[in-house]
């Protein structure tokens, strides 16, 4: 298969970037999207050009490192997959593919298609944890949790923090990510004790970092490779409202 690639090239965070067009030939249809970029990079290196920088790690859809905004969609045209799980058979021979980095003020471009997603780490540091020493691995039945609660928490915890929600949102809002992280702790007894402090701290950090506001477009949910539901956003709003209204007077 042959493709025309329009790839965003940017030397560093400060440089002005531009799109560069590459033609790539003889790509197998069972080639993954990232393998296709590897092939392109090998060709660029052979020619003495700079290879295209892009994020990748596990290449099996669980680490959340790969990104890429492909033809107007984060992680490309397939639903519920990351870019590393996308294959070239999903495209037609001769297609033009536009590849852009995640666009958000809170995710500055490091180089080419790589963006700095430290903002997500900062949100987690603000409250996405339980501040007790959990010790060794506890017995599975030490704290009994109803199946439906465990499932809700697990579905939220499936978030891999890739940032596709921010990339897809027309407001570059991080609400789906933050709400998933708030939810998976808030529905479990271990996380309940600090739920009120947590949701306020994480929302405050999210705002401070310059993410946009949620307008309930549902784009995040549609593009999330782990299919995190916007029900989590409603839960976070509920938690937040309860925390603000129910806050006791400070002694």
């Amino acid at each position, binding site marked *: 298969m042959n493709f025309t690639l*329009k790839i*965003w090239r940017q030397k560093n965070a400060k440089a002005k970037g531009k*799109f560069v067009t590459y033609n790539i030939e003889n790509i197998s249809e069972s080639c993954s999207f990232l393998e296709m970029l590897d092939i392109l990079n090998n060709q660029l290196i052979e020619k003495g050009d700079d290879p295209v920088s892009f994020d990748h790690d596990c290449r099996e859809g669980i680490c959340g490192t790969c990104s890429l*905004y492909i*033809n*107007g*969609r*984060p992680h490309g045209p397939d639903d519920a997959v990351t870019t590393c799980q996308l294959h070239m058979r999903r495209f037609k021979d001769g297609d033009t593919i*536009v590849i*852009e980095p995640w*666009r*958000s*003020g*809170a995710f500055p471009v490091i180089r080419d298609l790589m963006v700095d997603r430290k903002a997500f780490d900062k949100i987690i540091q603000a409250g996405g944890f339980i501040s007790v020493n959990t010790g060794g691995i506890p017995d599975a039945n030490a704290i009994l949790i109803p199946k439906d609660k465990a499932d809700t928490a697990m579905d939220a915890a499936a978030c891999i923090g890739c940032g596709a929600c921010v990339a*897809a949102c*027309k*407001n*570059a*809002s991080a609400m789906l990510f933050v709400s998933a992280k708030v939810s998976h702790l808030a529905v479990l007894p271990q996380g309940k004790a600090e739920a009120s402090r947590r949701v306020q701290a994480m*929302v*405050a950090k*999210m*705002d401070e970092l*310059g*993410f*946009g*506001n*949620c*307008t*309930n*477009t*549902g*784009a995040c*949910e*549609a*593009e999330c490779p782990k299919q995190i539901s*916007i*029900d989590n*956003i*409603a*839960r*976070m*709003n*509920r*938690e*937040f*409202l309860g925390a*603000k209204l129910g806050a006791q007077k400070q002694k």
Partner: protein
Amino acid sequence: MSNKFLKYSSVTKKIVMSLAGLFLIVFLVMHLSINLLLLKSDDGAAYMQAVHFMTTNPIVKFMEIFLFGGFLLHIILGIVLQIQNWQARPVRYKVEGFSQKSFFSKYMIHTGAIIFVFLIIHFINFYFVKLGWVNPPEGVDKHDFYQMAGILFSNHFYAILYVILMIVLGFHLNHAFQSAFQSLGLNHTKYTPAIKAIGTIYSIVVPLGFAIIPLYFLLIK
């Protein structure tokens, strides 16, 4: 003033926005129920009675403060949030996304701005006339809203503009209704489908109810 608004968290702003919006949604039903009296063929007697009540009753006059407050909050917060949203993505995509599930949700600021412009025209046509800031049409008493509405709706240009505006309002409400509940965190496996259905019905029925009136004046009367 905007600094004060910026201080509040995004979620607080959205919650206030949705509460103000829901209040306006309730107000629209009130407004429509009075407007529909224009359709009664009694030369506006019932309509004028309702108008008289709405402009003189002390409780209604007191509630007017909240109504203007609701409008103001909804509009100012809408603008503040939108500016922040634009700032959150300083470099735009070459290929704009089409991931949005809800079409109308993308155009809330645009439909909102159109409704705002209409609101100003609406005030000039009615509320400011009542206050005496704007002169009523010749030979019409400044409290005679029936005559004023009749004159406006008999104007083809205004009537068509009004109908188009109601379609825009419908687009705005279609997303607004269910979105308000989502922002308030009122999401439930049992009730959310019903809220979405009611929101869709509301966003069709209410603007349609308003739009029928100029069409009646234009085509039948």
